[in-house]
């Protein structure tokens, strides 16, 4: 167990390198509005803070330290140049409300990025405003709503969502005031076309699809689906979660999608940062251009300028106070410039190669995959139902045991329709020998499941903590430190 930073605190210890000289009493502030006690933040030296947080960092698995085949999350290498160049002082010090004439460099990058993302997705216009994938989804569905409303077509109340979709899809639809209606997946992993035909109607506002889908296969009937939905007057929304599988190979616009969002923290390699920040740009066809969220960058007489509510009166509006996660957008831009057009296609090619190779090797080793007749996209599903029935171990137990072997676990129990599943996404940046090692680890763990299933049920064994009690955390809520949690300071440091 690692101590909290509060446990290192000693009253009166200060970090004088950061201490400004005493300042006058703020005697103009009315007493009633003044704070009477300081927040009980830790009082530590710089070294204590640096050591504490360095040690904490070492408790994380990360791409930089471990193979991280977390399906649907695209945990690929985060090139260091992207970080270093987005953190150049000129960019870091740019104020979000600085006028365009104060500096054109940042706007030039954003303008290029909008255009490149439009090209690579086959869309007519792109806004970089949404701060994450879920905000991109929300913006996309809001635009669908704005489009129908503008045409006086206000009876549409439903968004269709495959049963395997990410939970953000139905949640975003309902935040836009739509009812999410689920579509079943057929046994080969495609959306059930008959069910789709039955579901569409004058109440259909649109459909949200991920392609390749969340079950790791390409939706083969996409063109027919587009026709069915369009004929019913609905629009097609593309969830870009899995764009890594087809980057530069197939464009959502060419598949018939009207509106898309991208996860730059997946396909364009910006860091996941322990759970954010992301960036979720949206792209649209011609007919939805007026509704794109603001602000955007435009070019006027060779100069870059902002487009805001004043120039875009029909916009769905702002998503955040400023222009989205600018620093993330810069990182994606650097990545794209290093890759270029051919590099982008290679992303899809090698991500698909790695996934299909790993799937083949795991099948060879006797593991069951969810859709054996299909090609993998950039990811695939292994189901441990047989191991569960034979040895009494769960996908969770298997995943926890992988941690002992120095592999981050794949995504567990998603999609919900495959029992005891692991969704595995190796990404294009892993080398063949690491994939081979992953197959060995799978094989070893299955042997352990056969001979000593308890070893899996009680895993992990080699990490600083053993399995954590999530039920207790939710039942007996401790969401913050309080002073009684820390021993009184004694003068000896841990």
């Amino acid at each position, binding site marked *: 167990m690692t101590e909290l930073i509060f446990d290192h605190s000693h009253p009166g210890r200060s970090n004088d390198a950061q201490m400004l000289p005493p300042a006058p009493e703020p005697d103009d502030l009315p007493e009633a509005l003044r704070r009477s006690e300081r927040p009980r933040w830790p009082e530590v030296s710089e070294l204590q803070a640096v050591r504490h947080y360095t040690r904490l960092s070492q408790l994380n698995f990360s791409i930089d330290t471990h193979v991280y085949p977390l399906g649907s999350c695209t945990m690929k290498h985060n090139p260091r140049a992207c970080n270093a160049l987005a953190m150049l002082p000129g960019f870091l010090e740019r104020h979000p409300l600085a006028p365009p004439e104060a500096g054109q460099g940042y706007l030039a990058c954003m303008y290029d990025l909008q255009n490149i993302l439009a090209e690579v997705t086959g869309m007519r216009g792109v806004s970089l405003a949404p701060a994450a994938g*879920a905000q991109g989804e929300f913006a996309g569905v809001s635009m669908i709503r704005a489009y129908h409303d503008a045409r006086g077509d206000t009876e549409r109340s439903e968004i269709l969502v495959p049963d395997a979709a990410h939970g953000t899809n139905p949640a975003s639809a309902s935040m836009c005031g739509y009812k999410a209606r689920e579509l079943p997946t057929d046994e080969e992993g495609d959306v059930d076309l008959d069910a789709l035909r039955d579901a569409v109607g004058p109440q259909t506002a649109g459909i949200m699809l991920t392609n390749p889908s969340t079950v790791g296969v390409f939706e083969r009937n996409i063109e027919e689906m587009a026709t069915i939905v369009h004929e019913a007057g609905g629009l097609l929304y593309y969830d870009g979660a899995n764009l890594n599988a087809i980057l530069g190979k197939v464009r959502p616009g060419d598949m018939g999608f009207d509106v898309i969002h991208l996860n730059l923290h997946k396909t364009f390699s910006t860091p996941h940062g322990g759970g954010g920040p992301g960036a979720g740009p949206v792209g649209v066809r011609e007919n939805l251009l007026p509704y794109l969220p603001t602000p955007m960058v435009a070019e006027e007489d060779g100069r870059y300028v902002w487009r805001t509510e004043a120039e875009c009166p029909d916009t769905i509006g702002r998503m955040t106070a400023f222009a989205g996660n600018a620093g993330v957008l810069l990182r994606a831009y650097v990545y794209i410039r290093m890759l270029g057009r051919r590099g982008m296609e290679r992303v899809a090619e090698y991500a698909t190669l790695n996934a299909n190779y790993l799937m083949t090797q795991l099948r060879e080793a006797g593991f069951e995959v969810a859709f054996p007749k299909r090609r993998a996209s950039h990811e695939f599903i292994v189901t441990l139902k047989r191991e569960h029935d034979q040895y009494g171990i769960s996908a969770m137990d298997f995943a926890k045991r992988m941690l002992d072997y120095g592999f981050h676990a794949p995504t567990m129990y998603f999609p919900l329709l495959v029992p005891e599943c692991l969704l595995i996404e190796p990404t294009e940046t892993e080398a063949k020998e690491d994939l081979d090692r992953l197959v060995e680890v799978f094989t070893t763990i299955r042997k352990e499941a056969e001979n000593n299933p308890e070893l899996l049920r009680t895993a992990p064994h080699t990490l600083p903590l053993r399995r954590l009690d999530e039920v207790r955390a939710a039942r007996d809520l401790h969401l913050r430190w309080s002073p009684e949690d820390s021993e009184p300071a004694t003068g000896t440091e841990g």
Partner: protein
Amino acid sequence: MPFIPHTETDVRSMLDAIGVEDIDGLFDEIAGGLRAGELEGVPEGMPEMAVNRLMERRAAQEGRPLCFLGAGAYPHHIPQAIWQLTTRGEFYSAYTPYQAEASQGTLQVTYEFQSMMAELTGMEVSNASLYDGGSALAEAILMAVRGNRKAKSKRVIVPRAVHPHYRDATRTIVRNQGIELVEADFDRSTGTTPLEQLDSALGDEPAAAVVIPQPNFFGRLEDVDALTDRAHECGAQVIAVANPTALALLSPPGQWGGKGVDIVVGEGQPLGIPLSAGGPYVGFLCTRKNLARQMPGRVVGRTVDADGNTGYVMTLRAREQDIRRSKATSNICTNQGLMVTAATLYMSIMGPEGFERVARHCHANARALRDELCAIDGVSAAFDGPFFHEFVLRIDGRPVTDVLGDLAGENILGGLALEPYYDNLGDAMLVCATELHGEDERRAFAEALARAVA
């Protein structure tokens, strides 16, 4: 091939194992007509060296002006240790701590963040952060409407003295949920929200929540105790929008009025996050313990492992989209993990005293700057009364945008013209000073402004 490790031999043996001729064979389930042609609009790739040069040139175009712009994003000193540690690969390249045992670093940092934010705001609990202050206000409004069923109302009172961009983002996000946002006007001479304006916005109908900014968009301090009590008397929940630096000097929202507020949100950017053109920042949301289950976004809680050792996990997961799907408290899937790490480091390294000194310097510099600028002919303060580190000036004789343009020509960002936001403030600009704006910086600004208005 950038970032792809495969040798030709690797590729050959992998394809043989799969049983396809070439990589293109892996895409044989995709109809030929769907395949993209050459991506004409995407430039050719460049080696890192060339991209370095491009980005350095573009960053240099930004000019690094002397910045007196605030309005929701504030220039502050950031201790060097913060981003050196935050960008360690173990923080930078990890993801959401779904596997708690392999993510104790991120989880414990988040728990410490929640603890420090709860301390700062005087509230019982905090979530693990939201995208930014603007979207956090929208989420707080949705949360209040969910949580205040007694009010049987979806009306929310939002003062015009709340940041206009926060109000825009809120409108975008709550628009389709049947929520009515009712404005409360500010007093023309004080720039604050008087009780009468709150009363007139409330009217005789119930309201689910009242939003109270502190300081408000104009930098002015609101009479938060009276506003909080009045809102509570009417059965509304109170949502505070607070600046974290200001809270080093000002009464924490948890202590406003007789009962304290119900939800506090705000922008955590001043806590060690660079301006960076507007993001990524970090929204915070704190509340009472009995409302914790209504919170949007991620939350980290303390628990024990199989041996009884203390550890941390994501908790209250049953509220979230991946489990509750269309009935989730929000569609939010991530927090701003990396920014949480930076803010936690900032609060630890500054400590309570160092942080209070920062706030005092912001305030003292802003007071001094306002006096220095108002000594210039044609420049006057728009509002009377106390402010934290921002204030509104009126400019006589020349349009504000021209004055700001002249200042920009001298590499000074002098403030924000308020004309696009408020009809009656066409001759006004919002100016900010922080601990970075000592005597030299202020003098440079005052001299340039004197030339610009002359």
